């Protein structure tokens, strides 16, 4: 991955790949598809349909090639990053312009949707972004920068109306309110089940680390849960929850029903257990035995040992488990709609039912974005809870004291 710095050939293969992918996307594949209405197949149109904006896109592609052969690793990285953002912005505007032009004398039900070429170019932009990020990929926050900008750019384009005539944007415009509430619903069920998973999983991992019998049971059971297909697990939960809700009215008032958020919430919490329990267990058991021995020998009580030695040293791995769980749950949350939860999955499955690819994308793209954001956010959190003494050693070879004294 570090060709940009290590290779003596002085060009960045990752950036070059990104640029080539973008070039192919722009030159060979249709940029947009024009359809007489939402449901019929369309005809492809090249980038030229965007008029003057096409030249802007070509200009940025040229910049991407330059970024691959820049004079220094730093310059190459800066150029790839600029190229990546530039591409996303230029493609967004070009899409708007192409739609505008193509729909000028068409009926109102006609649609322009994003073509294969545009998608391939976006993939190329992402590759460029990674090439640019390489130099600095140690810093989660900087890694988060490109993603946040990307989301803001796309959301901005959607909201500002620049993409109004693009089919995806039209789906969005129609369902704006629903879309926002679904994103919130998605976040709520994922966050709540992750919190529940952590509240159960961390203590369970702790018990597993302390007690052999608990370990056997906890790791086996959470492992089995992970292998149950999501829909099957939801189905298994619906019936008893329905019965429970029917039998205990105050529980039903709390939302415990066969159909609704309850089965989804429980299923997601269960899925989060394996990564959380296992990482907590591994984190605690891999704490240096000598440190524990020293702590005991110095007169720490069990509690003090746990809070002052074991948990701080296990925290990075525990957080890593929560990160994995967060990404996992963000994806699976789309499926909870089958048991009545309201998440972005609704858009995806409605789209599938109606053969409306843009509707599917309206659900799928934000889900992916949420997963990426969860990933980055939790990584940043993991970094924050990693004790410095451990981090120093892992991240950079620490200066020896001779060196530090000399400096």
């Amino acid at each position, binding site marked *: 991955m570090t060709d940009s710095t290590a290779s003596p050939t002085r060009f960045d293969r990752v950036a070059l790949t990104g640029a080539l992918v973008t070039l192919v996307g722009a030159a060979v594949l249709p940029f947009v598809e024009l359809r007489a209405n939402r449901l019929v197949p369309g005809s492809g149109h090249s980038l030229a349909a965007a008029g003057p904006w096409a030249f802007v896109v070509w200009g940025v592609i040229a910049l991407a090639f330059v970024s691959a052969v820049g004079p220094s690793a730093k310059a190459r990285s800066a150029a790839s990053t600029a190229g990546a953002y530039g591409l996303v912005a230029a493609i967004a505007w070009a899409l708007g312009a192409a739609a505008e032009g193509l729909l000028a004398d068409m009926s109102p039900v006609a649609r322009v949707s994003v073509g294969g070429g545009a998608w391939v170019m976006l993939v190329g932009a992402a590759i460029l972004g990674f090439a640019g990020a390489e130099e600095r990929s140690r810093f989660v926050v900087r890694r988060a920068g490109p993603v946040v900008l990307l989301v803001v750019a796309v959301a901005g384009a959607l909201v500002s109306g620049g993409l109004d005539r693009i089919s995806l944007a039209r789906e969005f415009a129609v369902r704006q309110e629903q879309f926002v509430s679904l994103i919130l619903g998605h976040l709520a069920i994922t966050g709540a089940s992750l919190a529940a998973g952590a509240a159960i999983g961390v203590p369970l991992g702790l018990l597993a680390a302390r007690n052999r019998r608990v370990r056997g049971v906890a790791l086996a059971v959470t492992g089995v849960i992970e292998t149950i297909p999501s829909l099957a697990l939801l189905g298994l939960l619906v019936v008893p929850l329905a019965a429970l809700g029917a039998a205990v009215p105050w529980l039903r008032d709390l939302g415990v029903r066969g159909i609704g958020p309850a089965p989804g919430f429980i299923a997601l919490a269960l899925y989060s257990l394996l990564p959380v329990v296992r990482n907590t267990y591994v984190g605690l058991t891999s704490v*240096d035995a*000598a*440190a524990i*021995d*020293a*702590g*005991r*020998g*110095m*007169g*720490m*009580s069990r509690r*003090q040992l746990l809070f*002052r*030695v074991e948990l*701080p*040293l296990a925290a990075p791995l525990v957080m890593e488990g929560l990160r994995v769980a967060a990404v996992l749950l963000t994806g699976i949350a789309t499926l909870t709609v089958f048991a009545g939860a309201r998440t972005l999955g609704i858009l995806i499955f409605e789209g599938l039912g109606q053969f409306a690819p843009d509707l599917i994308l309206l659900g799928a793209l934000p889900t992916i974005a949420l997963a990426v954001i969860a990933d980055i956010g939790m990584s940043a959190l993991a970094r924050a809870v990693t*004790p*410095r*003494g*451990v981090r*120093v*050693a892992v991240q950079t070879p*620490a*200066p*020896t*004291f001779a060196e*530090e*004294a000399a400096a």
Partner: protein
Amino acid sequence: MIRLENVTKRFSEKTAVDGLTLEVPEGEVCVLIGPSGCGKTTTLRMVNRLIEPTSGRILVNGRDVMSMRPEELRRGLGYVIQSIGLFPHLTVAENIGVVPRLLGWEKPRIADRARELLSLVGLEPDSYLRAYPRQLSGGEAQRVGVARALAADPPVLLMDEPFGAVDPLNRERLQAEFGRIQRELHKTVVFVTHDIDEAIRLADRVAIMRDGRLQQYDTPENVLNRPANKFVHDFVGADRALKRLVRIKVTEVMRPAPQAAIDDAPEAMRERAGAGRFVYLTDDEGRLAGWLDTDDIRDDAVADAITTVDRLQATVARDASLRDALSRMLGLGFRSIAVTDDEGRIMGEVTFAAIEAVMSEAEEHRGPTADGEGA
């Protein structure tokens, strides 16, 4: 004071410690030594109750350890574990401050204590206080481990191979420093080691164990001169006479040395030599600058008979052992060597003949005891 009374520890089948009775008087260093698996660590860890004895009694300062809360007992016993066990997530200062924090000391007091202890173990506080364990070399980490054990000023120290992971050169330095610290602090110390030289160097009493049983508990001199049985005799090794030299300070066999100032008149130098052959020549601060060999004086040309030397190479410090002196003399081909005080001034000299006399004295003890009882 630590007393073990008929202490036994059994792990299911294996008897790790078998009827051990041992008393470490206050302010003394007891070194536990023996082959791997003989029960040294088990013995040490029974004192702070990390392991509980199967039978027998252990008293620390007159109190049965089983009658005390383990946490409280341990906070009063400094413990250096074999694998150092510094907390990787805490700085050096925080590592040293662990027990004081458990005891509820005020922050400024803990900080002052950490500085004080780092200086004591020979680490510059300003460069080490905020360092993390992974930034330390093995020897530096060992020192921090010792500082941490000393933090709350416990009267008793339990040290399990504290210098085990250090190269021989640094190990000797740490041993010398330990000796210095112990002369200053007078702790009651139980010190575990594999290294007989280390035991002889540091111990007031050596406890030699084998298969959980005590073989001999005596001063290093007696262990060397009068091994209790063949096991101890073999364990100590064939070079016992040489080892004995480790226990004797150069100042014990030092004799006055003829000295003259290097800018004295040739006649005055010669006169100082008296009947002897050599005169040490000193600079104006009384430190060695060279010597005059009166046998080399031809036609009264005294200047030609003067050899100037590197003062640090050609002397030994007052706290050096006879073994240090001997190896220095053999290395340089000298028949005698000057002993210097802390300021580097010449105090006297140690001769090869004096060392030989000590060694043959040790040989005399050897025959009857070792060969008689051993077989």
